[in-house]
């Protein structure tokens, strides 16, 4: 007898669907989560408490990472994030970082599953096709729309990926009037803006409330349960069915294998720091890519001297982020009529538009036909302390204070609406972007911390620059001025993926196409680690969908009936 059928390590978008599906199918599940268990009652729109005081992330003194970067002359140097302040943690709590997302939900497109065969190789990047296709994942994207709750509206446009259902199960959230301005700008420059789906409920469902349109969505916990985080959408329901137990503030320290080389027990520190063990038939790792790799490394033993399931040496390789770029513009009130200004000042927090005209770049001035990216439109985050800090500290030479700071802030907030186009592009997999264990730095439990080697491929910078310029054109066509565009090379630390890529060949991948470790047949990885390439959209919907898909494989391995088959 084991303590449970399935032990899931990590409770975010990767762990939630497994706990939900397996417990619904009648199996016992124990979820270990390092962070605390907040509920809706614990979340406030409190910039000091929630954004500036590490309420949702560990203190970097206790739990740093080490980041290794290359200088201009080619030498690598490493620094602890406790020293640099460069925080790689996201949401460390029950439900994980999905508590803090803005909920821009986009499916990957069919070409994202076959980047190499569609666009060919790129020198210095290890691009591969996925071992599954869009059609394998489509039913699970649809399942996420229902179970996690995705609101939106399907319209005719040239970039719609195939859908098994005609429309979203929830109508779109209320849109800011600027959405119409962007819609009108589209035809002027030949682009096709369309409604952005969102993992935010537009009406109550499954015991969760509807969106309250308070704003302060991204970076904050949701006080109504409308945001489709893994806790509100899945774990709360799984716990109610009586077969799923969530152990918060429990930090997994290693996975123990038996003489047969199969996963047998998970060893963890409980709330009081005591070492405990859980035995399980199946172990699922979903700690987010950097920490998932770290746990496999920490689980090294005689059979797996380089880390669990890592005799091939592939764990930790090809860490991905999203290749970010942006454009920012002001809609200055002095340029517009009174009624237009009233529209701009409307309180709806969501613009809900996305542009995919450059998802594939087909432009001779750029070069060969290439993978591009997606864009969405957001108002600049209304956090007043961040804005004030921006004006105080972003001058190169001098801090800004006193009446000049007050004037800058007042002018910025009262004379215009400021809109950012966020751009998501493919972060190319390279050997210089990977996770290992740091040989020296340890966390508060005495365990070696993850060391992140970080580099970005020059090609993705070229793509980012191109997309940023196109985004600026869209903003200008919609009526914005003072547009600044930027193709950033720095990683989006809130969107990590890769490090345990899935594939058919056990010599070049960690996981098989079912996200089962090639080398350990009762060990699965269901966070974003499985992705060999990331697509040009935020990863969350794909992580949810894949985790539901893998949950069905686990149910089959345990001898049960898959949810999609049973529910069909």
């Amino acid at each position, binding site marked *: 007898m084991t303590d449970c059928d399935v032990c899931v390590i990590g409770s975010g978008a990767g762990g939630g669907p497994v706990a939900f599906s397996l417990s619904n199918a009648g199996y016992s599940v124990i979820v270990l989560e390092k962070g605390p268990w907040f509920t809706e009652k614990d979340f*406030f*729109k409190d910039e*000091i408490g929630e954004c500036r*005081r590490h309420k949702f992330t560990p203190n970097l003194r206790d739990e740093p990472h080490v980041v290794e970067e290359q200088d201009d002359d080619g030498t690598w140097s490493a620094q602890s994030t406790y020293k640099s302040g460069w925080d790689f943690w996201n949401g460390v709590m029950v439900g994980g970082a999905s508590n803090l997302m803005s909920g821009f939900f986009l499916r990957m497109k069919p070409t994202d599953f076959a980047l190499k065969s569609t666009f060919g190789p790129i020198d210095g990047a290890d691009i591969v096709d996925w071992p599954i296709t869009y059609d394998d994942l489509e039913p699970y994207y649809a399942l996420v729309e229902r179970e996690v709750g995705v609101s939106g509206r399907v319209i005719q446009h040239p970039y719609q990926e195939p859908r098994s259902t005609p429309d979203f199960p929830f109508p779109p959230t209320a849109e800011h009037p600027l959405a119409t301005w962007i819609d009108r700008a589209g035809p002027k420059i030949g682009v096709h803006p369309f409604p952005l789906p969102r993992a935010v409920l537009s009406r109550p469902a499954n015991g969760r409330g509807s969106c309250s349109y308070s704003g302060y969505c991204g970076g*904050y916990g949701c006080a109504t349960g409308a945001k489709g985080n893994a806790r509100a959408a899945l774990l709360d329901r799984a716990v109610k069915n009586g077969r799923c137990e969530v152990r918060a503030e429990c930090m997994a320290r290693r996975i123990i294998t038996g003489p047969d080389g199969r996963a047998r027990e998970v060893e963890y520190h409980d709330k009081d720091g005591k070492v405990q063990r859980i035995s399980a038939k199946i172990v699922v790792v979903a700690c987010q890519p950097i920490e998932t790799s770290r746990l496999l490394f920490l689980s090294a033993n005689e059979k797996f001297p380089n880390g669990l399931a890592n005799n091939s040496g592939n764990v930790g390789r090809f860490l991905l982020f999203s290749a970010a770029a942006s454009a920012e513009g002001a809609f200055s009130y002095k340029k517009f009529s009174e009624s237009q200004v009233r529209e701009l000042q409307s309180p709806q927090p969501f613009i809900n538009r996305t542009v995919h005209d450059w998802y594939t770049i087909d432009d001779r001035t750029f070069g060969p036909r290439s993978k591009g990216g997606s864009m969405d439109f957001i108002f600049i985050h209304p956090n*007043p*302390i961040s804005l004030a800090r921006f004006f105080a500290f972003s001058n190169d030479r001098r*801090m800004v204070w006193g009446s000049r700071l007050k004037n800058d802030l*007042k002018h910025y907030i009262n004379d215009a609406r400021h809109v950012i186009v966020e751009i998501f592009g493919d972060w190319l997999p390279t050997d210089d972007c990977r996770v290992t264990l740091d040989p020296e730095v340890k966390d508060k439990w005495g365990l070696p911390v993850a060391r992140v080697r970080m580099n970005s491929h020059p090609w993705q910078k070229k793509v980012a620059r191109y997309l940023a310029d196109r985004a600026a054109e869209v903003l200008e066509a919609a009526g914005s001025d003072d547009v600044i565009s930027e193709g950033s090379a720095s990683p989006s630390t809130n969107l990590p993926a890769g490090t345990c890529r899935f594939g058919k060949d056990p010599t070049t991948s960690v996981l098989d196409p079912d996200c089962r470790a090639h080398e350990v047949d009762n060990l699965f990885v269901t966070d974003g680690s499985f992705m060999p390439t990331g697509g040009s959209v935020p990863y969350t919907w794909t992580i949810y969908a894949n985790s539901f898909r893998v949950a069905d494989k686990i149910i089959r391995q345990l001898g049960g009936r898959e949810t999609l088959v049973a529910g069909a």
Partner: protein
Amino acid sequence: VKERGNKEFVALSERERERVLRDFEDTHEGDLWLTLVLGYTLEAYVGDPSYGGNPDEVVWRWLGHRPGFPRPPKQTEATRR
């Protein structure tokens, strides 16, 4: 540092205060100290009134800033982290 010409900082004219602070900003420790103090000042200035600054949302009203909800409960010594 806070005194020049044997005068308390608060007794200086605005121009003189600015000069004292800018001179201090040019030193390494002054830069660090001012960054910290200005950062905390801004938190008190435009942060939630429950922390004791921005009384009756006076700064938010002057600024035309719309806060979100739910708002945090009043902070006490016990709830302060």
